[in-house]
Protein backbone atom coordinates (compact mmCIF):
# COMPACT_ATOMS: atom_id res chain seq x y z
CA UNK A 1 0.00 0.00 0.00
CA UNK A 2 1.24 3.47 -0.85
CA UNK A 3 2.78 5.42 2.02
CA UNK A 4 3.51 8.87 0.61
CA UNK A 5 -0.12 9.87 1.17
CA UNK A 6 -0.30 8.49 4.70
CA UNK A 7 1.70 11.43 5.96
CA UNK A 8 -1.39 13.56 5.29
CA UNK A 9 -3.61 11.31 7.40
CA UNK A 10 -5.10 13.03 10.41
CA UNK A 11 -4.46 10.77 13.41
CA UNK A 12 -4.87 11.78 17.06
CA UNK A 13 -1.50 10.39 18.14
CA UNK A 14 -1.81 11.87 21.63
CA UNK A 15 -5.30 10.46 22.22
CA UNK A 16 -4.06 8.09 24.94
CA UNK A 17 -2.59 11.02 26.87
CA UNK A 18 -5.94 12.81 26.84
CA UNK A 19 -7.81 9.61 27.66
CA UNK A 20 -5.49 8.97 30.61
CA UNK A 21 -5.72 12.57 31.84
CA UNK A 22 -9.50 12.57 31.60
CA UNK A 23 -9.72 9.21 33.38
CA UNK A 24 -7.46 10.36 36.22
CA UNK A 25 -9.37 13.63 36.56
CA UNK A 26 -12.72 11.89 36.92
CA UNK A 27 -11.32 9.11 39.11
CA UNK A 28 -10.04 11.78 41.49
CA UNK A 29 -13.29 13.75 41.21
CA UNK A 30 -15.22 10.62 42.08
CA UNK A 31 -12.50 9.24 44.35
Amino acid at each position, binding site marked *: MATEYLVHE*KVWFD*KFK*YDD*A*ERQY*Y*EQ*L*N*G
Partner: protein
Amino acid sequence: MAAGTLYTYPENWRAFKALIAAQYSGAQITVHSVPPHFQFGQTNKTPEFLKKFPVGKVPAFEGADGFCVFESNAIAYYVANEDLRGNTVAAAAQVLQWVSFADSEILPPASTWVFPTLGIMQYNKQATEHAKEEVKRVLVILDAHLKTRTFLVGERVTLADIAVVCSLLWLYKQVLEPAFRQPYGNVTRWFVTCVNQPQFQSVLGDFKLCEKMAQFDA
Protein backbone atom coordinates in the same frame (compact mmCIF):
# COMPACT_ATOMS: atom_id res chain seq x y z
CA MET B 1 -37.95 0.05 23.16
CA ALA B 2 -34.61 -0.33 24.94
CA ALA B 3 -34.40 -0.39 28.74
CA GLY B 4 -31.38 -0.91 30.90
CA THR B 5 -28.52 0.48 32.97
CA LEU B 6 -25.96 3.02 31.87
CA TYR B 7 -22.65 2.88 33.75
CA THR B 8 -20.71 6.15 33.76
CA TYR B 9 -19.09 8.72 36.00
CA PRO B 10 -21.28 11.79 36.71
CA GLU B 11 -21.37 14.64 34.20
CA ASN B 12 -19.87 12.57 31.39
CA TRP B 13 -20.60 14.29 28.06
CA ARG B 14 -20.23 10.95 26.27
CA ALA B 15 -23.00 9.50 28.43
CA PHE B 16 -25.18 12.55 27.74
CA LYS B 17 -25.56 11.38 24.14
CA ALA B 18 -27.42 8.22 25.15
CA LEU B 19 -29.41 10.00 27.88
CA ILE B 20 -30.62 12.70 25.48
CA ALA B 21 -31.44 10.09 22.82
CA ALA B 22 -33.46 8.18 25.41
CA GLN B 23 -35.43 11.34 26.22
CA TYR B 24 -36.61 11.36 22.61
CA SER B 25 -37.17 7.62 22.26
CA GLY B 26 -38.67 6.98 25.68
CA ALA B 27 -36.10 4.30 26.44
CA GLN B 28 -35.95 3.69 30.21
CA ILE B 29 -32.37 4.17 31.37
CA THR B 30 -31.18 3.75 34.94
CA VAL B 31 -27.92 5.61 35.49
CA HIS B 32 -25.35 4.00 37.76
CA SER B 33 -22.69 6.63 38.30
CA VAL B 34 -22.02 6.81 42.06
CA PRO B 35 -21.62 4.37 44.93
CA PRO B 36 -23.00 1.97 45.91
CA HIS B 37 -23.95 1.17 42.31
CA PHE B 38 -20.82 2.33 40.57
CA GLN B 39 -17.45 3.75 41.53
CA PHE B 40 -15.48 5.02 38.54
CA GLY B 41 -11.96 3.64 38.62
CA GLN B 42 -13.02 0.59 40.65
CA THR B 43 -16.24 -0.97 39.35
CA ASN B 44 -15.09 -0.69 35.74
CA LYS B 45 -11.94 -2.63 36.60
CA THR B 46 -13.70 -5.60 38.22
CA PRO B 47 -13.69 -8.97 36.40
CA GLU B 48 -17.49 -9.01 36.15
CA PHE B 49 -17.54 -5.56 34.54
CA LEU B 50 -14.69 -6.44 32.17
CA LYS B 51 -16.45 -9.65 31.19
CA LYS B 52 -19.38 -7.57 29.94
CA PHE B 53 -17.35 -4.57 28.77
CA PRO B 54 -13.83 -5.77 27.89
CA VAL B 55 -12.46 -2.29 27.14
CA GLY B 56 -13.28 -1.24 30.71
CA LYS B 57 -14.39 2.21 29.63
CA VAL B 58 -17.57 4.18 30.32
CA PRO B 59 -20.20 4.87 29.25
CA ALA B 60 -21.26 1.23 29.03
CA PHE B 61 -24.84 -0.02 28.68
CA GLU B 62 -26.42 -3.24 29.88
CA GLY B 63 -29.96 -3.87 28.65
CA ALA B 64 -32.61 -5.40 30.88
CA ASP B 65 -32.36 -8.39 28.52
CA GLY B 66 -28.61 -8.71 29.17
CA PHE B 67 -27.58 -7.11 25.89
CA CYS B 68 -24.29 -5.25 26.50
CA VAL B 69 -22.83 -2.49 24.34
CA PHE B 70 -19.92 -0.08 24.82
CA GLU B 71 -18.68 2.95 22.79
CA SER B 72 -20.87 6.00 23.37
CA ASN B 73 -22.13 6.34 19.79
CA ALA B 74 -23.25 2.70 19.71
CA ILE B 75 -25.11 3.10 23.01
CA ALA B 76 -26.84 6.27 21.81
CA TYR B 77 -27.80 4.48 18.59
CA TYR B 78 -29.22 1.52 20.52
CA VAL B 79 -31.42 3.57 22.86
CA ALA B 80 -32.54 5.96 20.09
CA ASN B 81 -35.46 5.64 17.68
CA GLU B 82 -35.70 5.63 13.88
CA ASP B 83 -36.20 9.40 13.68
CA LEU B 84 -32.98 9.99 15.58
CA ARG B 85 -31.05 7.34 13.61
CA GLY B 86 -32.16 8.73 10.24
CA ASN B 87 -35.04 6.99 8.59
CA THR B 88 -33.58 6.61 5.11
CA VAL B 89 -30.21 5.12 4.19
CA ALA B 90 -29.04 8.55 3.00
CA ALA B 91 -30.20 10.25 6.20
CA ALA B 92 -28.62 7.53 8.35
CA ALA B 93 -25.36 7.91 6.42
CA GLN B 94 -25.42 11.68 7.01
CA VAL B 95 -26.09 11.10 10.70
CA LEU B 96 -23.06 8.79 10.83
CA GLN B 97 -21.04 11.39 8.90
CA TRP B 98 -21.62 14.06 11.57
CA VAL B 99 -21.19 11.60 14.43
CA SER B 100 -17.79 10.66 12.94
CA PHE B 101 -17.03 14.34 12.32
CA ALA B 102 -17.60 15.06 16.02
CA ASP B 103 -15.12 12.35 17.05
CA SER B 104 -12.46 12.97 14.42
CA GLU B 105 -12.60 16.75 13.85
CA ILE B 106 -14.03 18.30 17.03
CA LEU B 107 -12.90 16.14 19.95
CA PRO B 108 -9.10 16.39 19.47
CA PRO B 109 -8.81 20.20 19.28
CA ALA B 110 -11.59 20.72 21.83
CA SER B 111 -9.76 18.51 24.36
CA THR B 112 -6.42 20.16 23.59
CA TRP B 113 -7.83 23.63 24.20
CA VAL B 114 -10.16 22.94 27.15
CA PHE B 115 -8.26 20.37 29.26
CA PRO B 116 -5.55 22.82 30.41
CA THR B 117 -8.27 25.29 31.45
CA LEU B 118 -9.70 22.57 33.70
CA GLY B 119 -6.29 21.71 35.08
CA ILE B 120 -6.57 18.23 33.55
CA MET B 121 -3.58 18.61 31.26
CA GLN B 122 -0.38 20.60 31.10
CA TYR B 123 -0.77 23.87 29.18
CA ASN B 124 1.18 24.07 25.92
CA LYS B 125 0.93 27.41 24.15
CA GLN B 126 1.67 26.10 20.67
CA ALA B 127 -0.75 23.18 20.98
CA THR B 128 -3.46 25.48 22.31
CA GLU B 129 -3.01 28.04 19.53
CA HIS B 130 -3.16 25.26 16.93
CA ALA B 131 -6.26 23.81 18.58
CA LYS B 132 -7.96 27.22 18.47
CA GLU B 133 -7.35 27.39 14.72
CA GLU B 134 -8.75 23.86 14.30
CA VAL B 135 -11.84 24.81 16.31
CA LYS B 136 -12.33 27.86 14.10
CA ARG B 137 -12.08 25.63 11.02
CA VAL B 138 -14.71 23.27 12.45
CA LEU B 139 -17.01 26.19 13.34
CA VAL B 140 -16.68 27.60 9.81
CA ILE B 141 -17.76 24.25 8.34
CA LEU B 142 -20.70 23.92 10.73
CA ASP B 143 -21.69 27.56 10.26
CA ALA B 144 -21.87 27.19 6.48
CA HIS B 145 -23.83 23.94 6.77
CA LEU B 146 -26.28 25.45 9.26
CA LYS B 147 -26.75 28.68 7.31
CA THR B 148 -29.72 27.15 5.52
CA ARG B 149 -30.64 24.45 8.00
CA THR B 150 -32.25 24.26 11.43
CA PHE B 151 -30.67 20.89 12.23
CA LEU B 152 -27.72 18.98 10.80
CA VAL B 153 -29.69 16.28 8.98
CA GLY B 154 -33.27 16.72 7.76
CA GLU B 155 -35.90 18.80 9.54
CA ARG B 156 -35.66 17.38 13.05
CA VAL B 157 -33.17 16.57 15.76
CA THR B 158 -31.16 13.42 15.02
CA LEU B 159 -28.22 11.65 16.64
CA ALA B 160 -26.05 13.96 14.51
CA ASP B 161 -27.20 17.03 16.48
CA ILE B 162 -26.96 15.15 19.77
CA ALA B 163 -23.41 13.94 19.08
CA VAL B 164 -22.10 17.26 17.76
CA VAL B 165 -23.78 19.31 20.51
CA CYS B 166 -22.29 17.00 23.18
CA SER B 167 -18.82 17.23 21.62
CA LEU B 168 -19.10 21.05 21.74
CA LEU B 169 -20.40 21.31 25.31
CA TRP B 170 -17.03 21.96 26.94
CA LEU B 171 -16.07 24.50 24.28
CA TYR B 172 -19.28 26.49 24.68
CA LYS B 173 -19.06 26.25 28.44
CA GLN B 174 -15.38 27.08 28.91
CA VAL B 175 -13.86 29.07 26.07
CA LEU B 176 -16.22 30.16 23.28
CA GLU B 177 -16.80 33.64 24.69
CA PRO B 178 -19.05 36.02 22.71
CA ALA B 179 -16.22 37.71 20.82
CA PHE B 180 -14.72 34.39 19.73
CA ARG B 181 -18.05 32.86 18.67
CA GLN B 182 -19.34 36.01 16.98
CA PRO B 183 -18.39 34.92 13.41
CA TYR B 184 -20.23 31.62 13.81
CA GLY B 185 -23.75 32.85 14.54
CA ASN B 186 -25.51 29.97 12.78
CA VAL B 187 -23.69 27.43 14.96
CA THR B 188 -24.53 29.23 18.19
CA ARG B 189 -28.15 29.65 17.09
CA TRP B 190 -28.35 25.92 16.33
CA PHE B 191 -26.51 24.98 19.55
CA VAL B 192 -28.86 27.10 21.70
CA THR B 193 -31.90 25.72 19.84
CA CYS B 194 -30.77 22.19 20.68
CA VAL B 195 -29.81 22.68 24.32
CA ASN B 196 -33.12 24.45 24.89
CA GLN B 197 -35.08 21.44 23.64
CA PRO B 198 -36.79 19.88 26.68
CA GLN B 199 -35.10 16.53 25.94
CA PHE B 200 -31.65 18.14 26.09
CA GLN B 201 -32.57 20.33 29.04
CA SER B 202 -33.74 17.40 31.15
CA VAL B 203 -30.23 15.92 30.83
CA LEU B 204 -28.03 19.02 30.67
CA GLY B 205 -30.03 21.34 32.86
CA ASP B 206 -29.90 25.04 32.01
CA PHE B 207 -26.85 25.50 29.84
CA LYS B 208 -24.93 28.76 30.28
CA LEU B 209 -22.82 29.88 27.34
CA CYS B 210 -19.28 30.97 28.15
CA GLU B 211 -19.00 34.68 28.97
CA LYS B 212 -15.24 34.88 29.48
CA MET B 213 -12.72 32.55 27.84
CA ALA B 214 -11.15 30.43 30.54
CA GLN B 215 -7.37 30.52 30.57
CA PHE B 216 -5.28 27.56 31.59
CA ASP B 217 -5.44 26.67 35.22
CA ALA B 218 -1.83 26.69 36.34
